[in-house]
């Protein structure tokens, strides 16, 4: 449930600041600045793409992605490797992030949950494909910006069969 404007005001936060953050994050992915993207995550941050709708836990069922910072680092190092065949040629992506709502705000802890809808178009090796779904970012205030505590991406076709996916969504 989205928080109303007056609830956001009471918590001392501005919806536009979260939207700007999500647009920035999407842009880092589209520009293949994977290290900068990883740096947006808190040290205890995780990136999760479930493999079934409404998946309750990343530990009890298979997921498309479930990276803590250590695995994220391995993933990013691989993306930078000259012989990553599945990125020869590399993917090009374009994200659109919209319908941004602040779902939870804990001003005392400085933690917020932001929901949004996204579309990512990916082109690689003569083929173009489409990813779409809802995402939820749990964010922690960090100076005048945020760190991602968890990014959860629920693809509408999460339980479908996928061709190889190399870049984060």
């Amino acid at each position, binding site marked *: 449930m989205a928080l109303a404007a007056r609830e956001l005001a009471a918590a001392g936060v501005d919806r536009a600041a979260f939207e700007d953050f999500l647009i920035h994050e999407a842009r880092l992915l589209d520009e293949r600045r994977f290290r900068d993207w990883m740096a947006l995550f808190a040290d205890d941050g995780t990136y999760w793409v479930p493999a079934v709708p409404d998946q309750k836990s990343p530990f009890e069922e298979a997921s498309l992605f479930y990276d803590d910072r250590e695995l994220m680092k391995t993933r990013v190092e691989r993306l930078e490797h000259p012989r990553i*065949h599945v990125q020869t040629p590399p993917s090009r992506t374009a994200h659109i992030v919209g319908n941004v709502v602040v779902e939870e705000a804990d001003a005392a802890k400085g933690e917020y949950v932001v929901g949004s809808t996204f579309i990512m178009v990916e082109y690689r090796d003569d083929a173009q494909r489409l990813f779409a779904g809802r995402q939820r970012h749990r964010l922690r205030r960090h100076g005048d910006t945020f760190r991602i505590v968890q990014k959860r991406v629920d693809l509408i076709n999460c339980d479908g069969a*996928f*061709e190889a996916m190399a870049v984060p969504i």
Partner: protein
Amino acid sequence: MRNGHADEIGKLVEPGRVHRRVYTDPDLFELEMERIFGRAWLFVGHASQVPQPGDYITTELGRQPVIMVRHRDGSIQVLLNRCTHRGAKVVNERKGHAQRLTCCYHGWSFDTDGKLATVPVPEGCGEGFDKDALGLARAPRVGEYRGFVFASLAAKGPSFEDHIGPMKGNIDDLVDRAPDGELALDAGMHRYVYNGNWKLQVENVLDSYHVPFGHASTVNKQGVQFARREGDQKGATVVEAEKKQTAASWKDRKSFIAGNGHGWTSNTTLDDGKRSSPAFDDYKRVLAEKVGADRAAEILTPRLHNSLIYPNMSIMGLNIHVRVIKPLAVDRTEVNIYPIRLVGAPAAMNFGNIRLLNVTHSAASFVQTDDLESFVRAQKGLQSHLTDWVDISRGLGAEEPDRSINATRGLATHEMVVRAQYKAWVGYMSEAA
């Protein structure tokens, strides 16, 4: 080729090479669906997927839709998912629970053993209407070993025991790791597809030659792969970094064949003495309590990497999972990979196994994605008409018997296992149904 005479089939496979048409010819694919997937023992599912009467999963054997369902008497039935009335697929969900299986089209309803139970507007049925003859078709033969359910769509052929016998030890190797001696395939599944022939995946599961090259992006500057088992601090050494060549320990690994196209590769050398984490240590303790310390140590000494039960399934001992290969077309294949829960193991150990399998085998994993790229490029390259033959000759003539386990042994970087698969392939394909 439509007729598939034995002499024509035989010409496609020579001792160290196969003709590219086995990957690219749509007529040969049709023949494979009939002669291999239409009669071989195929892995269907695992008993733990249907624990209670009425529980079912749906899958495909070759291209034929089937339902694996637990009947009231406890038996597991493998039924063709095709209404005997006008042909509609009866069950559309991938898994679920039902007392009756009811067709969406005209409401014919079947019992969980396939018997036709009710037909709406029965007064319309003619006098000769024989309800007993109109049950869902059943796989003529079904076999089960330690929860692994296989079926053959042919009434006759080698027995389940003949087929699975040589691979029982490989299944035991996995099942025995569970403190309660049973597995549960109840932790979801990974699904991926690629534009390539099904045999490219089958051949790859026992291919140790490709790892330093195909998976170069997973190997660090020291030649070591990332840690991929619960309790490991690092992965296998696959490259000798200074010499920039495949590591001696990797080259030393063995592969084995034991008839019927089956095969396996020996374990990947890891620092097992140093394997430790709170989850792994706890698991080791629980296992030892159940089976004794000596037996636990034996179980936890890795013996196997991948095992192939030809033609459609493999099990992995490193990142434990069950893999099912589903041909969709001559140049399109789906693969399903099930994480495994070791029943009786501490939850944290199972969590670790499930979590690390995402990293190695999901559609977005570090390992599987480079294999998929190789399969897609193989399918593209094989369109070349000027080079008709695919070379599978590595280690030809270097095979040796391993009498201790009644198998034939070769080096894992050789291609003995692929040649064994084609021997089985010719066997199935040469014989008219």
